[in-house]
């Protein structure tokens, strides 16, 4: 069983522009760039009839597409696919609520806030908090701080 949990989370658009990259393992900058490109290449060729899982190097990518954005989580091959697939959706629903109908531009202009949302829900490569109510309450509280 895995000791590592999530290796990285990526949000990319269809053109391959990264909207969020969160790394839970040490990679050097070149390696990160390579991973970003590989993930994009692997995920964008798949269609809706395919599974939401792809083998990737020694890991697997669990991904879901929302409009033009791909949300990808890289985990160990024996991690629970559906749990991570829904973790993505849970995260997207929080973003949607927080940014009030989230769109790609929100993630661009508020990139520094997206990191806060991620850290509330995922930490150290593990799922930290799953309750949307609790996460949003916390985000609202932080929002009110100067």
């Amino acid at each position: 069983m895995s000791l590592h949990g999530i290796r990285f989370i990526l949000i990319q658009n269809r053109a391959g522009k990264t909207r969020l990259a969160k790394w839970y393992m040490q990679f050097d900058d070149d390696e990160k760039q390579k991973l970003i490109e590989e993930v994009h290449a692997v995920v964008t060729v798949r269609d809706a009839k395919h599974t939401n899982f792809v083998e990737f190097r020694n890991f697997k990518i669990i991904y879901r597409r929302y409009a033009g954005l791909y949300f990808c989580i890289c985990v160990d091959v024996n991690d629970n696919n559906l749990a991570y697939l829904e973790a993505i959706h849970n995260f997207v629903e929080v973003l949607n609520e927080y940014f009030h109908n989230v769109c790609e531009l929100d993630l661009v202009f508020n990139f520094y806030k997206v990191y806060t949302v991620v850290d509330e829900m995922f930490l150290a490569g593990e799922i930290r908090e799953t309750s949307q109510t609790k996460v949003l309450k916390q985000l609202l509280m932080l929002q009110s701080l100067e």
Partner: protein
Amino acid sequence: MPAVSKGDGMRGLAVFISDIRNCKSKEAEIKRINKELANIRSKFKGDKALDGYSKKKYVCKLLFIFLLGHDIDFGHMEAVNLLSSNKYTEKQIGYLFISVLVNSNSELIRLINNAIKNDLASRNPTFMCLALHCIANVGSREMGEAFAADIPRILVAGDSMDSVKQSAALCLLRLYKASPDLVPMGEWTARVVHLLNDQHMGVVTAAVSLITCLCKKNPDDFKTCISLAVSRLSRIVSSASTDLQDYTYYFVPAPWLSVKLLRLLQCYPPPEDAAVKGRLVECLETVLNKAQEPPKSKKVQHSNAKNAILFETISLIIHYDSEPNLLVRACNQLGQFLQHRETNLRYLALESMCTLASSEFSHEAVKTHIDTVINALKTERDVSVRQRAADLLYAMCDRSNAKQIVSEMLRYLETADYAIREEIVLKVAILAEKYAVDYSWYVDTILNLIRIAGDYVSEEVWYRVLQIVTNRDDVQGYAAKTVFEALQAPACHENMVKVGGYILGEFGNLIAGDPRSSPPVQFSLLHSKFHLCSVATRALLLSTYIKFINLFPETKATIQGVLRAGSQLRNADVELQQRAVEYLTLSSVASTDVLATVLEEMPPFPERESSILAKLKRKKGPGAASALDDGRRDPSSNDINGGVEPTPSTVSTPSPSADLLGLRAAPPPAAPPASAGAGNLLVDVFDGPAAQPSLGPTPEEAFLSESWERWGRGMRTGAHPGHPVPLPLPPRFVCKNNGVLFENQLLQIGVKSEFRQNLGRMYLFYGNKTSVQFQNFSPTVVHPGDLQTHILSGLGQPPTKRVAAQVDGGAQVQQVLNIECLRDFLTPPLLSVRFRYGGAPQALTLKLPVTINKFFQPTEMAAQDFFQRWKQLSLPQQEAQKIFKANHPMDAEVTKAKLLGFGSALLDNVDPNPENFVGAGIIQTKALQVGCLLRLEPNAQAQMYRLTLRTSKESVSRHLCELLAQQF
């Protein structure tokens, strides 16, 4: 609910981001960024002290620029300053900048420890969380050293807020993963386990991850977590869909926490306490029951969350492998999913069933789904689903259904995706061998494989059929007859010719009685393929021919005629030429008795684990080993090789290349790695490392010459001790000093080197590509044979720098070699790398890119001088010449670059023909200097080159000529 406007709070940032987005070109973007960088720099350097807001804004802009992919070389101090602000938004940007950039500037960490310490002690939960998240995101050893002692205290303190506990638990997990030695649990253990009882589900969610990680190292210390986890799980599973409020997701109570608890339980055997076990079994049954209930929502989120728990439950049931009733129920449930309209579910059901197939309790139940799975193999649109179907067919195969499964796989192979063909071929080959009731079926299957997918039949597969045919005398006649028939197809795969050549050479006599396959017919059939085959196959056929001379004296005259033909005796290929000459002589001078002894039938091969099985495991990687284990069930099955059934412990070695050559009996000093291609087969099939490292033949030829020497010349002494077969040096390293020397699934070795005069320094970089630590990592440099006196790797002075014995997952370590060239040499030094991966020893040997031309000093000279020296070196042994076909496009610029990379100076205006290249240089060794002149004449029309080397030393001329000729 909160809704955030664009870039609220920092207008300047929003404007800047808009500007960047409006840039029409990359150049415009860079220009805008440089303008901004100049602006920020001047603000930071200005006399006026910046307020917190401006500092935050500029640091945030820098961060944005960095995330666009540009280097940031200032602003770190301002970010560190932000940490001491007591405004949340400023602190947050400071921490974010550090977490994101820390990879590129670890100096930062030392600067921020103080700020983190203050925040941890602040009793302000928001600040504490920011600090904990920063530690968790950076997770470096330095941070562990500074904070590992404080965090358990925060985690279990009675007055810590829930959100702080959540962050502290995962922060500790991260530090533990990075440096377990820094996290002393002991006194905290019991209180950490009790977090499973915490009222706050978020705290439990975080704590389970921490406990799951910690208990793997010390299962006994954390044993009490079992009963707590079971009762927590039980409360969740039996709760109504609305009981857990915040933690109910689409009518499913706490799906992620349930999954985590089920995974924690998979770290332990079934609970010993009967009451706990009873309660757990009840939970598992409840989950299985719920799967049958009508869904509470039509949303896919509902069914996904529910099924996430279901699949994890099934994993636990398989892990326990002790409740037949639950195993069969799990199998039935998965059976329903096999035909579900959701591709995800079909995929996961196939995958999960694969592990169920290996349990004796559920194997039969899995088998009932064979038709559905075969159908999936034929009709699924997603190749990864088809792949899982093939895996499952493989896993459910036994004596009762082997013929059906093998024939379905063969049929599928005709149209299979290229990506999975080789794996299907391996699977078919293994199943055919393992469950063969009669050997004729086995031989038919393998020959069919070669016919349908010859290109994907690796050497392991066809060597294996030869081993088995050689070892079983009851199948030899049938094999000879079948290959003979297969060879009659007008177009047959070269692998078929190889197998045919070997089998007829050994057992052709068994079918020679039939006039339709009389000796002359056999010979002319084989010989009709000869001219279309590669050198390796032709070499093999020549050995078949000499065997024919012994088996069928009546073919002697014909075969001698073939051997004597100019195309053989003067063949440009050394190996073919040598065989032709030697076999011709052997057949002319040796008496019948001698011939019969020398060319006797091959002895049986030693029994061992199938090399194909090893290859399949290697391909699948560590994670998938269990699906491929076949030692557990069907203990009565006999290996048709008559060998011992591999014991489960060796079969399930969780390593992609453990014992990859099946050489358990007599391990060689080092086994070549997985990707050694033909090189490792030499060792595998012929039972011992044999080839001396040599620059000459390709590994394939080396294989053939060595092994077929043993075969053809009847040398029965078996292996002679020697060096393991090293990987050949990729030819590009002759002209290049940097690059990736070796790469497989586990390890990457990069090299960087520089040479001056007769000295060199080489940096080797070993990268661990896995997530698991390599242990006992020891790379050593050896000089085979007489090389030691010629090249020294810094003997005496600073020896090869030691490399750490452990290489962490994802980490890279460096080794420095000092090299001194004492005299000219032919064979490069060998690098032998050994380590343990997941407990299994790994070893590989490869040639280091140190060739004599590395010690070349270019020499400029005028045409007149060049010709004078050229004439001085006119003795025949001083010159080496090669005429060869161009292997690459003939581009003058590329050629120039290669010659310069080779080390010589390029002399213009020397050769009267401007198309030609002329070079000069001196090989520097400690003992002597060797002057070298070279001339390369391209002939674009013929796509050929003529290369001439003149040096003052015969061996150097020839060696340089060989090295350089490979480059074009």
